[in-house]
């Protein structure tokens, strides 16, 4: 089963249905990055680095974008850690895998 075969909507119908919503989401991301530029003390942050890598996958033309971005934002190690340093998660791995 391929993606294009499995959604009952036509290509045009899908665009009509979701274009405006996703246009807004792109502008939100742009505004977020602009906002970061306007903050006082720019610093390297592993989450923003991961986000920039993820954005590059959106336009590489290779498909399966969601799964590939999920993998990019995942801890790819396989062994349990010794102890949990915190209870929360950050949304991106501390060690950033290759895009």
């Amino acid at each position, binding site marked *: *089963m391929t993606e294009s075969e*499995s959604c009952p*909507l036509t290509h045009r119908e899908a665009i009509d249905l979701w274009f405006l919503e996703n246009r807004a989401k792109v502008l939100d991301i742009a505004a977020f990055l602009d906002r970061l530029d306007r903050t006082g003390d720019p610093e390297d942050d592993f989450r923003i680095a991961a986000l920039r890598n993820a954005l590059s996958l959106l336009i590489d033309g290779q498909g399966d974008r*969601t*799964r590939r971005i999920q993998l990019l*934002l995942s*801890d*790819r190690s396989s062994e*349990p850690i010794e*102890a949990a340093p915190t209870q929360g998660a950050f949304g991106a791995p501390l060690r950033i895998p290759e895009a």
Partner: protein
Amino acid sequence: MKYIDPHIHMVSRTTDDYMRMAQAGCVAITEPAFWAGYDRCSVDGFRDYYRQLTETEPARAAQYGIHHHCWLCINPKEAEDVGFAREVMSCLPEFLDKSNVLGIGEIGLNKNSRNEMTILEAHLELAKSLDSLVLVHTPHLEDKLKGTQLIMDAVNNAGLQPDKVLIDHVEEHTVGEVLERGFWAGMTLYPDSKCTPQRAVDILERWGTDRIWMNSAGDWGNSDPLAVPKAQVEMRLRRHPSAMIEKVTFDNPITFLGRSPNFHVEC
């Protein structure tokens, strides 16, 4: 259209939510034991919580015509202190034979630590001894992929049948392996993390509708107790047939949960 929300934390929700869920077609729910947003400091704190899950919530849900069921465990976020977690587990037998208990859950991993693994394995051993169903929490965000794989390996090592285990909170990068290894899969519909209703329907379109369900996991955080009926609307919007919608939001939960003699719903 009627539906079942197979994962929702009603201890954190209001009676207004019960009313709105009933109005939207909810006829049954299952509520896994989870983290309250803070660490409980005593075994008796958990004992009170288990009473809430097995006595208070079923009565509250019944007022709105909703069948309430639950799963019991100590959740992985409070499992880092192995000694304390074992103490809490020692009081589970006081509640496991209550009439609305379906099995062990939501067990799993949070930060994928060795201590969490130790308590996960203890729960799996308990589930095997009871021959019960298991509901599994998979970790958040960057920890999900690794944790899901560790959990599936632990289930296999414990000798449990994968078709009696539901791996919850699957997303695009974990759903394939979960289904291919014979487990049931749950998609949690959240506004920010996990799946939106749109992405959940995308996953159904790519991976099919066998051994999979959707839930709201509504709790004290950013969540929506009406997420499942909203996903039904999303499926209708895409012209998916009613039978497919009903399969994912009603029939599939019955197929899995019905393997517990304590699960009840009017069909």
